[in-house]
């Protein structure tokens, strides 16, 4: 075999870098791209005119003295958390701090950020300064404001120009530094500018009752702390990564990310009134019985030598799980039994050496523990007293419903897609019917059904808050659509991949889990993210069933306040900006994800 490395075909090839495309000077660039012939010139001028008209219209809307922007800034808290009590507000800030910590640590551990050359930064500043100046000229400002804004725009342009001139070609700066600088500037402005009072932009007597500086006063210290916490978490993450490099670091952080929403909701924000006696006497013993007995059972199922008897017993557990689910008894027992049945069903797929088996049992312990805790938490009443049906509202309700729906509908959707493409007719037919049925119903119908009807149909001993019922209904709805996206991905996996997996002796479930699903999900990232964005935006339908989501607050609550009568348009514009911010972040995240998983492909 020694003579195998014969030819030079596989030797390391030195790649000659492609010659740099010469950068055109601005004048020629304009000529080539915008005014290359008569027709293009016409198109350019036409588009520019439209752009100018839209900008002018938007600016004169925003800076019209009639606008009541005070209605937005004064009601920021209402839009964020609705009626969450003032004296408990520290809980909200703790939640935000937890999220900032996680974001900081994750950025460190995933090596977020890229290098931005100073020249790029310079040309960005230069062009944004020019844009500011142009917009200022268009805006209906009074003389003084116009001059101030022109100076600001020119200063930004000038800074960009200086950067372009002075800096070397290769000098660069981390994009994270830029983000931190932007955040710092925003927070500094909270300390300097009294937001919550809007007359500083143009001169007029404020018609509103907004106190000067309310927003800035209540949030400047907390936001400063949040950003500092985020930065500290980033450096902590870097230190941990360098000192204790471990393969388990990223999975751990991902796990924490998944645990964070329920923890924040049920432990921090909701302030549950746990009945410790009940928890100690019932919930924990039930969990322990399931953990120990189930763990032993699963450890036996995953032993490679167990063989046929194990599969039969696993099937029996599955039957028992379904049988018990429809028998009236404590909800926690039914759910844990169903979960155990699922784990038993998958056990032959993950049979292996002792390490693999231990990991499988640990997964069971972890998941069953979390489920026990969640079910207990859902059934524990909240101590936060608010008027209305639910203790949260505004953007936090929107995010809450969106996050829970997306996370819950993912596994359901994947299972539905697998069932619909399965060879087993019962699964295929049931799944197809479910998907087609749900897709044929408007979301509003489902939301109304789950909020009004489902609580009536529930068996005795089972309680479901309205929001939980809605999240379940919305998840089923979302899962049906998600399943179709995943099915597209499943179909894109070539026959050759199936055959290769079969040829090395994999069982159908091993083939699905190790070969088909990873590739199918990778292909479906763009439609899946599009779906997530849709789920996020359609939470605005919650308003119809009487929940105070952010759109409802902006449309119906604020414009009815005596100080801000009729301020609908301002708040709608603001809310659309908020929606855009989150949707755009999701879109960005999806692009990053696509790049990351595209690694193996040429």
């Amino acid at each position, binding site marked *: *075999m020694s*003579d*195998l*490395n*014969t*030819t030079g*075909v*596989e030797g390391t090839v030195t790649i000659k870098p492609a010659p740099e495309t010469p950068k055109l000077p601005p004048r020629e660039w304009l000529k080539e791209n915008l005014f290359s012939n008569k027709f293009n010139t016409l198109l350019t001028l036409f588009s520019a005119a439209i752009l100018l008209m839209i900008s002018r219209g938007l600016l004169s809307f925003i800076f019209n003295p009639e606008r009541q922007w005070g209605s937005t800034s004064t009601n920021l808290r209402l839009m964020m958390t609705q009626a969450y009590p003032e004296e408990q507000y520290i809980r909200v800030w703790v939640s935000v701090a937890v999220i900032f910590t996680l974001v900081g640590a994750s950025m460190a551990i995933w090596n977020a950020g890229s290098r931005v050359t100073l020249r790029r930064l310079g040309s960005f500043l230069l062009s944004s300064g020019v844009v500011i100046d142009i917009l200022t000229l268009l805006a209906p400002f009074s003389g003084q404001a116009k001059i101030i804004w022109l100076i600001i725009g020119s200063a930004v342009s000038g800074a960009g120009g200086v950067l372009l001139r002075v800096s070397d070609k290769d000098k660069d700066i981390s994009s994270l530094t830029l983000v931190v600088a932007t955040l710092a500037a925003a927070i500094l402005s909270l300390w300097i500018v009294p937001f919550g009072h809007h007359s500083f932009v143009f001169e007029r007597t404020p018609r509103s009752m907004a106190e000067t500086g309310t927003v800035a006063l209540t949030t400047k210290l907390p936001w400063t702390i949040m950003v500092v916490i985020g930065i500290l978490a980033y450096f902590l993450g870097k230190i941990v990564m360098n000192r204790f490099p471990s393969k388990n670091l990223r999975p751990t952080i991902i796990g924490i990310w998944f645990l964070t929403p329920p923890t924040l909701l049920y432990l921090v924000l909701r302030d549950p009134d746990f009945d410790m006696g009940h928890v100690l006497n019932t919930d924990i013993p039930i969990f322990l019985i399931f953990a120990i007995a189930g763990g032993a059972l699963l450890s036996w199922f995953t032993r*490679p030598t167990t063989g046929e008897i194990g599969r039969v017993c696993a099937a029996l557990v599955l039957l028992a799980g379904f049988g018990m689910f429809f028998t009236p008894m404590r909800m926690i027992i039914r759910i844990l039994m169903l979960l155990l049945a699922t784990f038993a069903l998958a056990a032959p*797929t*993950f*049979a*292996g*050496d002792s*390490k*693999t088996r231990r990991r499988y049992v640990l997964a069971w312990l972890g998941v069953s523990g979390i489920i026990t805790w969640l079910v207990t938490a859902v059934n524990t009443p909240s101590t936060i007293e608010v008027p209305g049906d639910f203790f949260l509202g505004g953007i936090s309700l929107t995010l809450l419903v969106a996050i829970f729906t997306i996370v819950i509908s993912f596994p359901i959707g994947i299972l539905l897609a697998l069932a619909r493409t399965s060879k087993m007719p019962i699964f295929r037919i049931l799944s197809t019917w479910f998907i087609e049925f749900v897709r044929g119903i408007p979301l509003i119908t489902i939301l109304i059904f789950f909020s009004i009807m489902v609580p009536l149909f529930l068996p005795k001993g089972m309680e479901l808050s309205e929001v939980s019922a809605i999240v379940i209904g919305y998840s089923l709805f979302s899962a049906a659509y998600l399943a179709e996206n995943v099915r597209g991905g499943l179909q894109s996996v*070539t026959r*050759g*991949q199936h*055959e*290769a*997996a*079969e*040829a*090395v*002796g*994999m*069982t159908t479930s*091993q083939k699905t889990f*190790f*070969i088909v699903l*990873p*590739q199918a999900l*990778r292909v479906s990232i763009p439609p899946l993210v599009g779906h997530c964005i849709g789920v996020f935006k359609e939470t605005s339908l919650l308003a119809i069933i009487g929940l105070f989501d952010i759109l409802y607050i902006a449309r119906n609550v604020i414009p009815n306040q005596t100080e801000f009568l009729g301020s609908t348009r301002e708040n709608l514009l603001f809310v659309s900006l908020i929606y855009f911010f989150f949707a755009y972040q999701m879109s960005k995240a999806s692009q990053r994800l696509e790049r990351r*998983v595209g*690694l*193996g*492909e*040429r």
Partner: protein
Amino acid sequence: MNENENTETPASDRDLSNAPDMIVCEGVSKWYGDFQALDEVSATIKEQEVVVVLGPSGSGKSTWIRCINRLEHHQEGRIEVDGIELTNDLRNIEKVRSEVGMVFQQFNLFPHLKVLDNVTLAPIWVRKKPKAEAEEQAAALLERVGIPEQADKYPGQLSGGQQQRVAIARALAMEPRIMLFDEPTSALDPEMIKEVLDVMKELALSGMTMMVVTHEVGFAKEVADRIIFMDDGQIVETGTPEIFFSNPTEDRTKLFLSQIL
């Protein structure tokens, strides 16, 4: 390929008449709709034998070889692999598949897994090998096929010849008793064919039972114990390479050889 002829005994000189049967096919027939792909194919392949299947395209070579690990289902006749008959019984199929390695024309590596994981996945989850052991074995196999340094790359980063060698290593990792090759070099650029054929030659000399569908006449002449020529889903002629290439009996064989030689 010339340097091998002087130093090693041609495989076809071995006496395999006493070796046990590895693959037995009796009257295997298969239809795709109305089209008959296989027509009463009968053949026996001995342990350690290297059989090359030749024939024009559409003659049923690939269909036959794919029936042997049941990627295709034959409709009539029987196939027995190492004493296990291929039926619809799932357990038999899984058992046969873990004993029969297969290499495809299009490589079919798993693009989302690194080369090392491509090789270790089946041993860990099908053979239930401890991970460390599987990785050790995979490293040795990658060394054997001549690409130990590519273990941490993704298949998409390798050349076609390297990918096909990874595919061979992946099949070998299951420690199969039989290897099936379905046109392993047809999708390769000419300069990469040799590196794959060299690996297959080494495998044949090590005593592996092999069935190879290929158009590489040089490989067939040098390595095969027996040539099976197929046309229209039937076995037309079988024989040792010397007789088959120099003195074929059937007209169809002569026509085929005159076209490819």
